[in-house]
């Protein structure tokens, strides 16, 4: 922080003489322009939908916040919301533990300069190259209860009782989806963590080593604190990703979050309301759907802001 303001003071004094000082303010313009035109404008235009009464895809009268009230007071909308919300939380927690936990471990292993590091990085990242539709389709097949590779394998090694209808049983469906998602996102997390690890100045670690820090202690005292930026990025991204979880659930369990809403998420619920459930042939409730999107937006925005503030503060303290 101190350094930054020093640079700033210098910049300012320099800029006074510099007729080009306004040039710097052009830097964010192209990004802002495209972003406002194609994201912010359409989204806010759509936000207003939540304030109208809708008959199918026909917009009716202005009704204020009635859609928001219905969303939280009438059944089945109310219980669908809380059920999906709960699933989103599970999504986030399990992804943090499984995907990011494993990714950190793997990044550390690669950082330890093992051989074939290039191969490992590529291997972990490869699933990320596939489209989510393909990922969903592939895993649906692998998890197929009767001829899927996983159950065939379990039967072969004598663990018949472990073989389950993974995606059809409400006890295993959500976990299966989250694990598939972790499989998909692992490589990206490894790369982010690896970049963070490799950004740690080598002399700092050497110094700590000379002070006698090893293994877990080294990780806890030196490496983790210095990795706060990449951990911040991954936490916020995982959070946003978990609360926007849609494509994989949609590809593997459809727009109803089957079985029996056990894999339903807020974004899937939004899609169902705004675009129709049951294979796209169902009726739409655009008003309620837009209200839900607004609520979802406030949840994600406020919690991400919180994460950023807390973690950024830690970063500064370091």
């Amino acid at each position, binding site marked *: 922080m101190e350094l930054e303001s020093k640079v700033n003071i210098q910049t300012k004094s320099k800029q006074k003489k510099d007729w080009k000082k306004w040039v710097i303010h*052009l830097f964010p*313009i*192209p990004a802002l*322009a*495209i972003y406002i*035109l194609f994201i912010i404008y359409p989204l806010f235009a759509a936000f207003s939908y939540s304030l109208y009464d809708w*008959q*199918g*895809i*026909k917009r009716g009268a202005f009704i204020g916040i009635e859609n928001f009230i219905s969303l939280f007071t009438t*059944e*089945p909308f109310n219980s669908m919301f809380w059920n999906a919300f709960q699933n989103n939380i599970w999504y986030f927690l399990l992804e943090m533990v499984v995907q990011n936990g494993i990714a950190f471990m793997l990044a550390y292993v690669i950082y330890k300069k093992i051989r074939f590091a290039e191969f490992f990085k590529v291997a972990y990242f490869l699933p990320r190259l596939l489209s989510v539709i393909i990922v969903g389709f592939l895993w649906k097949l692998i*998890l*197929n*209860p*009767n001829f899927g590779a996983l159950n065939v394998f379990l039967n072969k090694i004598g663990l018949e009782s472990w073989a*389950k*209808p*993974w*995606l*059809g*049983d*409400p006890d295993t469906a959500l976990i299966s989806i989250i694990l598939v998602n972790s499989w998909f996102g692992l490589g990206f997390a490894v790369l982010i963590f690896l970049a963070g690890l490799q950004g740690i100045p080598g002399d700092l670690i050497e110094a700590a080593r000379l002070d006698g820090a090893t293994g877990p202690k080294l990780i806890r005292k030196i490496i983790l604190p210095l990795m706060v930026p990449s951990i911040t990025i991954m936490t916020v991204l995982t959070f946003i990703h978990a609360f926007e979880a849609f494509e994989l659930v949609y590809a593997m369990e*459809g*727009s*109803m979050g*089957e*079985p*029996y*809403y056990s894999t339903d998420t807020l974004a899937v619920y939004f899609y*169902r*309301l705004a*675009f*129709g*459930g*049951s*294979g*796209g*042939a*169902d*009726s*739409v*409730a655009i008003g*309620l759907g837009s209200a839900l999107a607004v609520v979802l937006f406030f949840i994600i925005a406020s919690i991400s802001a919180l994460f950023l503030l807390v973690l950024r503060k830690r970063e500064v303290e370091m």
Partner: protein
Amino acid sequence: MKRMLGLFLGVVMVLSLVLAGCSSSETNSNASGNEGDNGSDSGGDKVTLTMGSWRTEDKAAYEKIIKAFNEEYPDINVEFKPSKNTEYNTILNTALQSGEGPDIIQLRPYAPGMELAKAGYLEPLDDLNGIDVFADDVIAAAKSEDKIYGVPLSLNSAQMFYNKKIFEEHGLKEPKTWDEFIEINEKLKKEGVTPIALGTKEGWLLSLGHSIVGPAHYGANEFVDQITAGEKNFTSDEFVSSIKAMDELKKYFPDNYEGLGMEDIRTLFFTEQAAMFPLGSWEIEVLREMNPDLDFGFFPMPSAVGKEPTMTTWVDGSYGLNVNSEHKEEAKKFLEFMTTEKFAKLFASELSRIPAVPGVETGDELVTAMAEASNQYSTPYLMLVHFNEGNPTTKATLETELQGMYLGKVKPEEVAKKLQENAETYYEPFQK
């Protein structure tokens, strides 16, 4: 320096784009006018119509149908542009709300399709030549507030398919009563064959399954008349027993049925691992393609309450006319063509399905037999024809709640209760 130049060019380009965006949204009407011009430019005097549909698998058949249409109207170009079933509504609704969309639109049957009419996106077709060939109950699928908005395409039926070879090997005959049907299931199960290929992973299979099994218990058309008059409802004993029957049948489903979807149960049936397959008439083509040697038939569902057996029938998607179409006259020509026998014959022979135009033979023994049985024993697909409204729809509610029932989360009585609560939000006979 060159790089910097590129960078600034980028900035300038984006800025000008933004400005262009602002100015052209002000001159909104102009822009859409231009688009119309482009459309007619491409073909000189020829007009190009687009057709929206969710039947990606029918593309080749439609190309032949369009060719036949062009024999009469060589100046009207028709492009069949289907999109994936599950995304069709999203694509169509987005385009319609922006004043675009295909000229000729395939409409989901009954209430969901008629939502487009209510929202004012469809042109009424009451004065279309040939629209009067359709029977009243057929045209009902495309009617909203006493106006006709679609040309019905085909008649669907749902019934129990069975594997003739397996039935023969186990000395079984088509059942004439519900008890016989259960006996068949018991015998097959004892002898190591999966009796019914049905999975509960995809909800729509369950409402379809219920449309086949249900009428046998609620007493088919008599109950339908009563419930649509508001004299009975979903919590009536007749209906509850139809849900219980669905529950009872789960013993005869394949192993791990909770995890099985459409592809899985179809595979079980065409690989001859399962004896019966409760599904719609459109599966005939697929089954034949997957296993040309499969020898299969169908039977109407025998009643459990001493009535006639039933075939579940409804009208599948009709074709409507986009109110914003630039070529309504030409589009009407094509829609008129869809009411002719010429079209119906092609449709029947290319797709092995029963056209909505009456009196057309498909020339396919199985399909003809099904059409005859449908005429004789027809009962409507209750959920699709009468209860496909609300949010979620009553049909979707049945699907989810049945899934919950099979997973042991809800009891049959609770399924019925949820249906009733849902239907009461919009169904007028229940609101009295």
